[in-house]
């Protein structure tokens, strides 16, 4: 049981099982390994497991139901975080242990907003402005659509050539969904049920020219790469990383829609209820360590979560050489300005997001099937 007093330092070095449901280890595993190397007295061994976010809840539930939690740290996105919180899976870290997490004070401004979304359960470890962006092949689309209207017109003229993935399964998909109310000037961009009339109407119309809603961004990227479609929804990370990996041609370009706001995204560290006091102590030390500038620079990675660092003042020059090279080759200079010049919004809270997904599934995704 972990509800007892959490010591500053574990009584003896712990074995830490880390479960990543957000793909966050790609950015942070180096930080954790560094910590273990430097503090063998705190963490003697780490194991990593990865899982899809939705399955996490079941796994933790089963362990908690039996009173044997063997996972000490979960790395998750907003969805897993709030779903777990609703199910009462997470240890409440804040404000109880705020004093041990002083580096949280150095969050950059939009990242700090994302931390607010986490409530008292998670500590933000990486952040990026995400999207919505459109990615296209310049040889096929010489004049990319510049506004929502142009996008619709393009889709109408080229049926089946525009694509975005099912929002519930795709970061770019959901960013596109949540970003549209700002682009279209909807009544209440935070209320998908009552405030998104224009968005829903727009999506419905757009849907007439979409063949399939893929379940996953990867599939849309593949469609873009092999010429099945010409325009897909993307984010900064989904733009840079796949081109670096070679799954999307290097020549792909991105554009934005007139009047767009960034809908930001972040990853969090959470501690499952039932983790031992020693483990909690270790995790707190670890997270504090991860939020140092030096460690945060590793979050540049290969552009997967571009830029990545949650804290202020981490420059690409601080990143490992490999990151710098990749970003130099596949990054886009225009991103700096785009990020600087456009407003940044936090995503929907989990309840609204689930409601939006459900509405999308029924009315947009399922619309092609007669009831």
């Amino acid at each position, binding site marked *: 049981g972990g509800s007892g007093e959490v010591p500053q330092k574990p009584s003896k070095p712990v074995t830490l099982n880390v479960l990543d449901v957000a793909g966050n280890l790609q950015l942070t595993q180096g930080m954790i390994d560094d910590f273990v190397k430097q503090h063998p007295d705190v963490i003697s061994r780490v194991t990593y497991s990865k899982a899809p976010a*939705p*399955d996490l*809840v*079941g796994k933790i539930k089963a362990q908690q139901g039996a009173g044997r939690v063997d996972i000490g740290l979960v790395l998750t996105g907003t969805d897993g975080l709030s*779903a777990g919180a*609703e*199910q009462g899976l997470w240890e409440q870290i804040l404000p109880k242990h705020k004093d041990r997490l002083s580096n949280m004070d150095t969050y950059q401004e939009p990242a700090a907003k994302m931390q607010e979304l986490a409530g008292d359960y998670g500590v933000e470890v990486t952040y990026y402005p995400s999207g919505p962006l459109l990615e296209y092949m310049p040889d096929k689309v010489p004049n990319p659509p510049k506004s929502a209207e142009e996008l619709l017109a393009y889709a109408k003229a080229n049926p089946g050539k525009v694509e975005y993935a*099912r929002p*519930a399964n795709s970061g770019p998909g959901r960013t596109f969904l949540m970003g549209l109310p700002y682009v279209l000037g909807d009544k209440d961009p935070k209320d998908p049920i009552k405030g998104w009339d224009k968005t829903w109407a727009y999506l419905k119309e757009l849907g007439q020219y979409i*063949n*399939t*809603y*893929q*379940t*996953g961004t990867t*599939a849309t990227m*593949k469609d873009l790469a*092999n*010429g*099945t479609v010409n325009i897909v929804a993307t984010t900064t990370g989904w733009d840079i990383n796949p081109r670096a990996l070679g799954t999307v041609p290097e020549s792909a370009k991105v554009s934005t829609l007139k009047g767009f706001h960034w809908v930001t995204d972040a990853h969090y560290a959470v501690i499952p209820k039932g983790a031992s006091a020693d483990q909690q102590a270790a995790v707190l030390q670890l997270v504090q360590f991860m939020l140092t500038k030096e460690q945060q620079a590793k979050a540049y990675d290969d552009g997967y979560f571009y830029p990545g660092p949650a804290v202020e003042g981490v420059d690409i020059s601080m990143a490992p050489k490999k990151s710098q090279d990749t970003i130099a080759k596949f990054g886009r200079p225009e991103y700096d300005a785009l990020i600087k010049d456009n407003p940044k919004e936090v995503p929907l809270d989990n309840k609204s997001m*689930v409601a939006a*997904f*459900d509405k999308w*599934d*029924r009315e*947009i*995704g*399922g619309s*092609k*099937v007669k*009831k």
Partner: protein
Amino acid sequence: MTGGAATGRAPTGLSLRHRLAERGVDGQLLLLVPAMVFVIGLFVYPFLYGLGLSFQPTKGGGAFADYQRFFSDAFQRDTIWKTLKLSIPAALFNVLASVPIAYRMRGRFRGKRLVTTLLVIPITLGTVLTAEGLLNFLGPAGWFNRTLMSLGLVDQPIRLINNYWGVFFSLVITGFPFAFLLILSYLSGIDPSLERAAATLGADWRARFRRITLPLLAPGLATTFCLTFVLAFSVFPSAILVGDPTGTTRVISIAAYQAAYEQYDYPFASAIAMIMGAVELIVIGVVLLWRSRFYAGSTGGKG
């Protein structure tokens, strides 16, 4: 049953034994115990838990609220038909295609091992490789469409994935070897001298197959159909990967999955899963009823 005279002669304990013997109760039934222990110990309790959960809807409204919710919502209800529309044809196809192939491969002939192995290979692929392969191979830029187009047979790639057919193909690729292997083994258990007897009675291969082999194979066919059907009915990854998961291939397991893992509404997910089980049970019940009309027993030796 025990005749009056015999009952008079034998003490009552004995006649009870006689009666039990005639009903088939004796020590041999103990062979069931290990399997029952597994099922009861590891399945029945968790299953009843899930069943109980399905009667405790998150949103309240009475024990059956989640069931009502499912059936009153066309978006959910339709998943049953979509699933049946996929799984029954796929299971039927797998079984029906296996039968003639297995029938032709009963005896011994050169190369049989090779052909059998090749037919069974897809079993090793796994859903992911199958899905990836279908996407790569049948996709608009895949080898299949490229071949068709360079042969001039079509000028637009034909759409074989991300729709009903993609899922159907995937169910065939993964389900056929499974059905084939089972049917080949059931077929191998049938005494070939029966077919010979039928041949001397003037039955050509068609009649031999229909009147002798098929009825004797029926129990195996029923089982194979049930198992392939169950696999096809709970199709999940391929419905998403190569199907059209928001539309025509939004199968019932997707509905359950979304309830459980996207909306975290476990009671509703349990209710959907129970409905899923009930639908399967109905189909299987019909099949087993059909099966019970056939002979099940030894096919060897004299008689």
